[in-house]
C-alpha cells in the first residue's frame, strides 16, 4: 500500500489549508486508493462474465459468418503494441509526477493519450470493417458477444482517455499536489487494468480466432 509521504505537496491549492485539513486529505487519499482497488475488482467481474459469455457464445453464429475466422490477428497485434506501450509511457508519467517534474509528466501523458487514441482508432476501423462486411453485432449471438466484450473494453479506454485529458488540464491549471498526484495514480491503475483485460482479449478472442 502506498503511503502518502511519497506524494509531493507542491500545488497551489493546498497552501492555505490547515494541518487538520491536510491530515484528513492524506487519509482520504489512502481510502480512495483502497476504494479504487475494490472498484477495479468489481469491474474485473464484469469482464470475467463477458469473457464467459464469449466462451459460451463464440460458436453460436446461426446463419451469420464465423466470427473467429473474421478476426485479423495482425491488426490486433498492432493494437496490443499500442496499448502496451501506452501503459509503459503512463508508467513513466507517474514516475515523473512523483519526482515532481511536471513538464516531463505532461509530455508522457500526451504520448499516452496519442497511443491510446491510436488504439481506439484501430479498434473502430476494425468494427466498421466488420459491420461493412455484414458482420455487425445484430447478426448473431456470437457477434453480439464479440462486439460487447471488445466494445466494453473500448468504452473503458475511451473513459480513460477523457480522464487523461481532464487530468492533463488539471495538472496545468492546479499544479502537482497530493490529491491530483494520487488521482493520476488511480488513473494509472485503471490504465494498467485495461492492459491486463486486453491481454485476455488478445488471447481468448484473437489468438483463439487465429486458431479457427
Amino acid at each position, binding site marked *: 500500500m502506498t503511503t502518502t509521504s511519497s506524494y509531493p505537496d507542491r500545488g*497551489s*491549492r*493546498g497552501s492555505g*489549508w*490547515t494541518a*487538520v*485539513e491536510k*491530515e*484528513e*486529505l492524506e487519509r482520504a487519499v*489512502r*481510502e*480512495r486508493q*483502497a*476504494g479504487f482497488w*475494490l*472498484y477495479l*475488482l*468489481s*469491474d474485473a*467481474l*464484469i469482464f470475467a*462474465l*463477458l469473457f464467459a*459469455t464469449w466462451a*459460451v*457464445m463464440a460458436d*453460436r*453464429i*446461426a*446463419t*451469420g459468418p464465423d466470427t473467429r475466422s473474421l478476426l485479423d490477428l495482425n491488426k490486433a497485434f498492432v493494437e496490443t503494441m499500442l496499448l502496451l506501450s501506452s501503459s509503459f509511457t503512463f508508467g513513466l508519467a507517474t514516475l515523473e509526477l512523483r519526482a515532481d517534474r511536471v513538464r516531463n509528466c505532461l509530455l508522457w501523458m500526451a504520448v499516452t493519450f496519442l497511443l491510446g487514441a491510436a488504439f481506439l482508432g484501430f479498434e473502430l476501423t476494425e468494427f466498421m470493417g466488420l459491420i461493412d462486411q455484414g458482420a455487425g*453485432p*445484430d*447478426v*448473431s*449471438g*456470437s*457477434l*453480439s*458477444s464479440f*462486439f*460487447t466484450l471488445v466494445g466494453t473494453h473500448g468504452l473503458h479506454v475511451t473513459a480513460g482517455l*477523457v480522464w487523461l485529458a*481532464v487530468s492533463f488540464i*488539471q495538472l496545468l*491549471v*492546479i499544479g502537482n499536489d497530493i490529491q491530483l498526484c494520487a*488521482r493520476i495514480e488511480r488513473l494509472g491503475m485503471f490504465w494498467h487494468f485495461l492492459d491486463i483485460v486486453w491481454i485476455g482479449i488478445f488471447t481468448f478472442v484473437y489468438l483463439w480466432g487465429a486458431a479457427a
Partner: protein
Amino acid sequence: MTFLGRLGIDSLPFYSPVAFAGAATEVLAALMILALVTWKGWWKPLFRDWIATVDHKKIGIMYLFLAGVMLLRGFADAMLMRLQQAMALNSDGYLPPEHFNQIFSAHGTIMIFFMAMPFLTGLINIVVPLQIGARDVAFPFLNAVSFWLTGAGAALVLLSLVIGKFSTAGWTAYPPFSENSFTPGPGVDYWIWAVLVAGAGSTMTGINVLVTILMRRAPGMSLMRMPLFTWTALVTSILMVFAFPALTTSSAMLALDRTLGFHFFTNGDGGNMMNYANLFWIWGHPEVYILILPAFGIYSEVVATFSDKRLFGYTSLVFATAVIGVLSFTVWLHHFFTMGASANVNAVFGIATMIIAVPTGVKVFDWLFTMYRGSIRLTTPMYWTIGFMVTFVIGGATGVLLAIPPVDFLMHNSVFLVAHFHNMLIPGALFGFFAGFSYWFPKAFGYRLDETWGKRAFWAWITGFYIAFMPLYALGFMGMPRRMEHYDVAGWQPLLITAAIGAVFILAGIACQIVQLYVSWKNRESLCDTTGDPWDGRTLEWMTSSPPKPWNFDRIPTVHSLDEFAWRKETAGFVDEPGAPDVIALPKDSLLPMAIGASAFIFGFAMIWHIWWLAIMALLTILAMLTATGFTRDSGLRIIRIENRDAARAEVASS
C-alpha cells in the same frame, strides 16, 4: 424517429381503470406533498438540511423514508394481487391480465430493489460508522450519490405507473419473454434502467461501506472486536461489490438486445437465454444474503442487548456469516433445476444449498443460547426477533425441501415457492429491519417509539403472515402455479380467500406502524432519550448522544473489548482519558449528488423512451459535474472549532 422517441399521448394509463386510479393517486400524492412543502415554507430547510446533506445519519434516514414509501407501494400491489386471486375463480376478477402481470412484476422489483435494499442500506448508514467509532463513512459524497441513484431508480418505477407501462416479465425479466419480439414497448426497459441505475448505487455503497469498516475503525477495534451488525454489513458489502456486476452485465445485455437488436438471449440467431438465467442468479442468490445477513446482524445486537448478556458464540457467528457469504456464490443454479442441467450438476448445487442450512442453524442456536439464562426484556425489537426465529425455521425447512432437485421438479413455479421465499424474506429480512428500526430509532431521532403500538404492529404482522402464506404452501401441493390471473379449480378458492384475509391483517400491521410513528412523535417529550443509551446498550453507538452530533463523537473512543460500552460499564474503576480535539474536519454539504441522481433519472427515462439526444445530454451533464468537482481549489471540508463545547452544540442545534 421523432423528437420525443416513442413517447406519445397513448402512453398515459387509459387501458385499465385500476391503473388509471393508481396513477392518479400517485400524481395527486406528489402534488399534495409539493403543495404542503410550499405552503409550510419547507423548501429552504429541505434543501439545506436534507437534499444537500452528506451526513451518513441523515442519508440513512432518507433511505429509510424511501424504503417506507416503497413498502406502501409494494404492499398496495400485494393487496391488489391477493384480491384478484381471491375473486378470479372462473371469472376475470377485476384486473385485466396485462395489468395483473405488471403488478406482480412491480411488486417483486419494488420489494427487493426499492424497499429491502434502501431499508438495509439506511440502517447500515446510520449505525455502522457509530458502531466502529468513526465520524462518517469513508466517502460521504459518494454515499449521497449512491442514495440519489437509488432514488432515481425508484422514481423510474413509480413513473412507469403514470407514463407507459411497467414490465410484465416478472421481477427476474427472463428472456425470451422479456425480448422485443414478445414484449415490445417500454415496460421491460423501465425495469432494466431502474435496476441498472439503482444497481450502480448499490455497488458504490458496497465499496463505501467496505472501505469504511476496513479503514475507519476506532483505535483498538480489531476485526474480532467489531459488533456483529458491523460484521454482517462487511460481508453484505463484499457480496454487493462482487455480485452486482452480474446484474449489471445481464441487464445491460438485455438492454442491448432490446435497443440495438443484439442476440444475447433471443430465440433465434444464436441467442442463449440460459446464459441470462445463469448471469441473473449469479447476482440473485448472493442478493438473498445481501438482504438477510444485515438482518441477522440486527437480531444479534437485539438479542444480546435485551438478554443483557454477551452474544453466545460470537466467533461462531462471525464465521457462520463469512461462510454464508462464500457459499452464497455456489448455489445459484438451484433457481433453475428444471432448465436442463444434468442430474449430477443439479446434485452438486442441491447439496451446496443444503449445506447453507448448517451455518444458518449455528446462528439460530447462538441466538437461543444467548437468551438462555439471560435477563430478557421483551421490547418490540425482541418481539420481532423471537417471531423471526420461530417463523424463519419453517421457511428454512421448506428451503431444504426445495433444494432436493426431484422435489423441486414437482414444486417449482408453484405458489409453494412463493410461500417459501416470502417465508425467508419477510421474517428473515423485513422483521429484522423492523427490529433494527425500533432498536435504533431513538439513536437516529432522539426519542423512542411507542411500545404498545409497536407490539400491536408485530402481532398483526405475524398473524397476517401466517394466514397469508401458509395457505400458499398447501396450494403449492395442490398444484397451483404462481402468477395466475384467473383459474378454474374451485378447490383453490377458499385458501386464496384465506390468504387475502391474511393480507388484510398485514395491512392492519402497517396501519399500526403508521399510528406508532404518529403517537411516538406526539409523545416525543416523554419518550425522549436524554442519555443516548435508552436500552442499556453494549456497543459504541450508545456511547454518544441521541441524535449524535454531526461529528458523532467528541473524542474517538479507544476500544478495549468486544462490546466496548458494556465493558466500560462493567469495569470498575475505568476512567476514560479526558480531553478531545478542538478542531474537527467534516465533509462539506453539496447539491451535486442530487443533481447527478436527477441526471441519471433523466438518462434512464430517455433510454426507456428512445429519446437519444436527451440521454446523451444527461450523460454529458454528469460528466461535466464530475469534472468540475476536480477543479475546485477548496479542500471540500468544513472545519468545526469547538472552543466552547456547549456553544458549538447550541449552534449546531439551531442551524
